[in-house]
């Protein structure tokens, strides 16, 4: 492209970017992952992108030149520091790339180190329920055969003692 042609094209680009041009710029920015909505594109980037887009579509430009302009546009936008929420997102992504595997390894180490210990703890509290007394079992058998209020009261009393014994055993094992 000659110098005169460049001047001609640049003259066409003077003035404010139109709404349509800005929309195109925003769409381009989305392709470049510099922002997902138009508002997130820095205004300078938007104007430059709009200008270069318009330039690249000039009818006098052939395929290789258009491709070169697109490559230049991509390179320029890539070099420009990203601002606002985009920058924070990129920074977060970079941290995530390091933190995620590190956290995964840490969790696995903790699991391997402590997991077996928790199994031991469970086994330690796996206690045996105290055996019931023969007296309680005899009263229970009588209660099944021929229930009377006296048998009921006797059984409740015996069962109360046995229950206390079991609970004391459970509480001692969990301490």
């Amino acid at each position, binding site marked *: 492209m000659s110098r005169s042609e460049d001047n001609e094209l640049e003259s066409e680009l003077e003035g404010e970017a139109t709404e349509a041009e800005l929309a195109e710029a925003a769409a381009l920015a989305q*392709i470049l992952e510099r922002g997902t909505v138009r508002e997130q594109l820095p205004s300078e980037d938007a104007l430059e992108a709009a200008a270069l887009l318009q330039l690249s579509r000039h009818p006098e430009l052939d395929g290789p030149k258009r491709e070169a302009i697109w490559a230049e546009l991509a390179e320029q936008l890539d070099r420009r520091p990203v601002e606002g929420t985009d920058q924070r997102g990129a920074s977060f992504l970079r941290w995530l790339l390091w933190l995620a595997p590190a956290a995964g390894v840490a969790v696995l180490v903790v699991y391997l180190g402590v997991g077996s210990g928790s199994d031991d703890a*469970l086994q330690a509290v796996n206690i045996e329920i105290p055996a019931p007394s023969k007296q309680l079992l005899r009263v229970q058998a009588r209660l099944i055969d021929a229930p009377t209020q006296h048998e009921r009261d006797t059984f409740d009393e015996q*069962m109360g003692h046995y229950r206390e014994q079991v609970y004391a055993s459970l509480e001692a094992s969990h301490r």
Partner: protein
Amino acid sequence: MNALERRKRPRGCYVCWALLCLGLVILGCEAAEPPQDAQDGAGESGSWLRTARRAHQVADDAKTVEQRGQAVAELEEALQALPAHAPGVDWVRLDLGARLAQLQLEQGDARSALSWVQRVMPKQPEPSVPAANLLVVAGRAYEQLGNEKQAVESYHQALVMNQTLMERSLEGL
């Protein structure tokens, strides 16, 4: 493919990598998390044991209809507070269930009693005193509901279980 489209690739790879790592972290966390049973059994065991013990105390002291109603509520609460698995919890569940069903039976509510028996009794219960108690309560409930066959079967199972426990006790001498 133009220059802009070619530039999209690396970012996509980074995102995939990040997602893969996140998945690894999530899997690791799930694996490293102590089983709920272990937490219940070791960490909060004092809590459910205290609740169960208090419920039995309320049931012991219940003399009036109102107090028995309160005891039923306490026993229900204690049953709901039990962990699914913890050392000794099966025994405590059967005992609370038998006590609760017995109280409901004494209040004339055989259906609720039977319902609780069915909720707490495992399909193949290990012989124990509270399991035999539950079978006795089930027999009484079936009797009240006019189901003699099921009542006799429950009493028979209770007697067999009682006999098994007695044999074990004698073997231990």
